[in-house]
């Protein structure tokens, strides 16, 4: 299961394909890799399809919009080939179609990669692993964990502020200027409280002997196991296969250069 993979290794296994894929401007490479990602997500991640779609669909729509725009405004360098559509102000050539579709597929790869990581990773384990494997300073990792606890409290406080201001009649001030004013009014108490709270947490942590020093023992030892290497290797291999397939089929295109 992807959720049991060491978070740091998982992060590397997700970031490398992300970076390398951004070089591929053809259609086949991201298509092959996306197929692989979907297989991994549906058969090995344990994420419920409904939940996954809830994130994937809106993000993909955004990606499609982006791809559509870039198809219409393709750089002349790439926009060669036959004219496919020439209607009013819309001009689509085979070149620009390829750029658009490729961008859409790549974006979907990024989304699938991100979801594969985000939906299967426990934030506490991620931080512990980043401290133990990637040697991030404890000050940073525990700081992030403490901050993460605050998110729901923040929302609660914003709700209270809204109510308190409604009682005072603030919502009655009209117009854009009024809106900006209102935002300003929320910011001051929110920030004041956030600063106070973070100071309190820092005090509490230090009072429990936390110094930020790396010399500490670990209750949860997060290790890198064989499975983690298997996961990393298979992600990289799948990426290599995607590039190789596209190369043998004659589609591979890196930064506009065909091979």
């Amino acid at each position, binding site marked *: 299961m992807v959720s049991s993979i060491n978070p740091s290794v998982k992060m590397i296994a997700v970031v490398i394909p992300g970076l390398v894929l951004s070089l591929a401007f053809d259609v086949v490479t991201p298509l092959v890799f996306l197929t692989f990602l979907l297989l991994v997500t549906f058969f090995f991640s344990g994420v419920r399809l409904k939940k996954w779609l809830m994130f994937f669909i809106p993000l993909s729509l955004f990606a499609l919009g982006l791809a559509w725009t870039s198809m219409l405004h393709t750089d002349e360098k790439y926009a060669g080939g036959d004219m496919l559509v020439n209607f009013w102000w819309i001009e689509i050539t085979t070149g620009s179609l390829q750029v658009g579709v490729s961008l859409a597929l790549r974006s979907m790869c990024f989304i699938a990669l991100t979801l594969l990581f985000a939906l299967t990773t426990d934030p506490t384990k991620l931080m512990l692993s980043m401290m133990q494997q990637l040697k991030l300073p404890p000050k940073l990792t525990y700081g992030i964990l403490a901050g993460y*606890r605050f998110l729901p409290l923040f929302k609660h406080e914003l709700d209270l502020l809204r*109510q308190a201001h*409604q009682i*005072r009649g603030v*919502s009655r001030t009209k117009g854009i200027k009024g809106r900006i004013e209102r935002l300003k009014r929320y910011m001051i108490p929110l920030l004041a409280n956030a600063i106070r709270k973070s100071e309190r*947490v820092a005090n509490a942590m*230090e*009072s*429990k002997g936390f110094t930020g020093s790396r010399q500490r023992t670990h209750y949860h030892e997060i290790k890198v196991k064989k499975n983690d290497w298997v996961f990393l290797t298979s992600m990289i291999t799948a990426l290599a296969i995607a590039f190789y397939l596209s190369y043998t089929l004659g589609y591979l295109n890196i930064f506009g250069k065909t091979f």
Partner: protein
Amino acid sequence: MSFSPLLELKDYSFSYESQEKPIINNLSCTIHDGDSILLMGASGSGKSTLALCLNGLYPEAIEGYSSGDIYFRGTNINDFKKGELNQKIGIVFQDPESQFCMLKVEDELAFTLENLSVPRSEMVRKIDRVLDQVKMTNYKNRKIHELSGGQKQKIALAAVLLMEPDLLILDEPTANLDPVSSLEFIALVGELQDNTEMSIIVIEHQADDWLHLMNRCIVLDQKGQLMLDDVPDHVFNQHAELVKELGIFLPNQYENTVEQNPLPSIVSSTHPCMSVNQMSFKRKKDSILKNISFNVYPGEFISIVGQNGAGKSTLLQLMSRLLQPSEGSVTFLNRPLNEWDERELRKRTGFVFQNPEHQFITDTVYDEITFGMKLNEKPEKDFKAVANELLETFHLTHHKWSNPFALSGGQKRRLSVATMLDETPDLLLFDEPTFGQDAHTTLELMKIIINLKRKGTSVVFITHDMDLVDQYADRVIVLNNGRIALDGQPEELWQNDDLLKEARLRKPYRMERKEVESVGLIH
């Protein structure tokens, strides 16, 4: 064992800015092994700051300024390595929401042990033992944010106990808890005191329940100077006047006159100011309030009590149309609440929040008070007079042009009430307004409320303080599991032992003492 005292302060002063007058002022005292000290002082007298100075966090953490010395077992605390002194002096803080950095109970406790570099093999045993000590064994794998306030404080205590400190400082640990959780926590500390040799310092506004555990009482004045340092009996018997003057709650047992109902209710009207009819409220799928019905009459003071999570705040929000009921309705002055024009409704009702800062929207005290009147397009010369009168009544004239956020705790509280009173409202709702306030501020607030009551304003007041209920409330409504478990005179509640237990409430001091005395007579 060394012969040096546990802690020794010599002419210790502390301030946040070098120019400012010090928060802690020339303090000299000695704390011995086995001491149980009650540290008291009005808000702003530097009690919490002192706690952080003692365990070496201040002045370093905030770049404050200090003079004089503190010695721990004869060694100057500046000579300790970072983190070393924190282990000898543990602190449990007031706010249960902001003293954890992990998500699970087990991990939070492990965090302390990791800081001390305890080998992993010993951790499980130590965690299990400390959880047994605080009676939270069943909560080991729970998420911290799902716990109640009282349970959170027990975990905070457990995390500190893991360091096996020589001195335990408790900084208002029960301020946010319901009455029974608060008593449970104090009993727990009492047990620890019996079973360990730890010295204890308790910082607390309301000392009543702690007194039997304490053998010494230190009182600071507003300038952060040491005023009294003696056994509690002497402090409260011989210096009762001084203690009161400093804005400190005199424990009830030293108060000779326990007043009851200083002002008989003037409820004469049979016409309700607000009536709530079979109201229910759901949040997502959770039913928060079920089938709530009651009337509020003009000039009536109603207390709403119940444990945390019983739905008290939600009820108040529904009564002020900040939330909409899922079922049922609310009528205000014979008109359905939803038919009221927003402006008119806000003029006729008021709502005072737990945290006064939430209500501030302008940059000066004067603007804050006049804000509502300006919105209602009152002529300037009218509202000037009203504003000045309010400033005078609430002792804020000197701070007319101060920023509301820069006021002291008590001043903020007064201002937050003043902003609701540009016109005498028909109904005022209070969500735990005395929470974390000192004796002085609480008394002032209650005086203001009584005055409003005289003018016919109805007051609905959420509180955990049963003595306030006993003294001021005409009626008490007990919420339990989203239902009204009792709606009647406070006396009815005090007689209902089963309900008190179920709703995690307690009797006011007056009644508790009576019971102790009657038991004493039998023996």
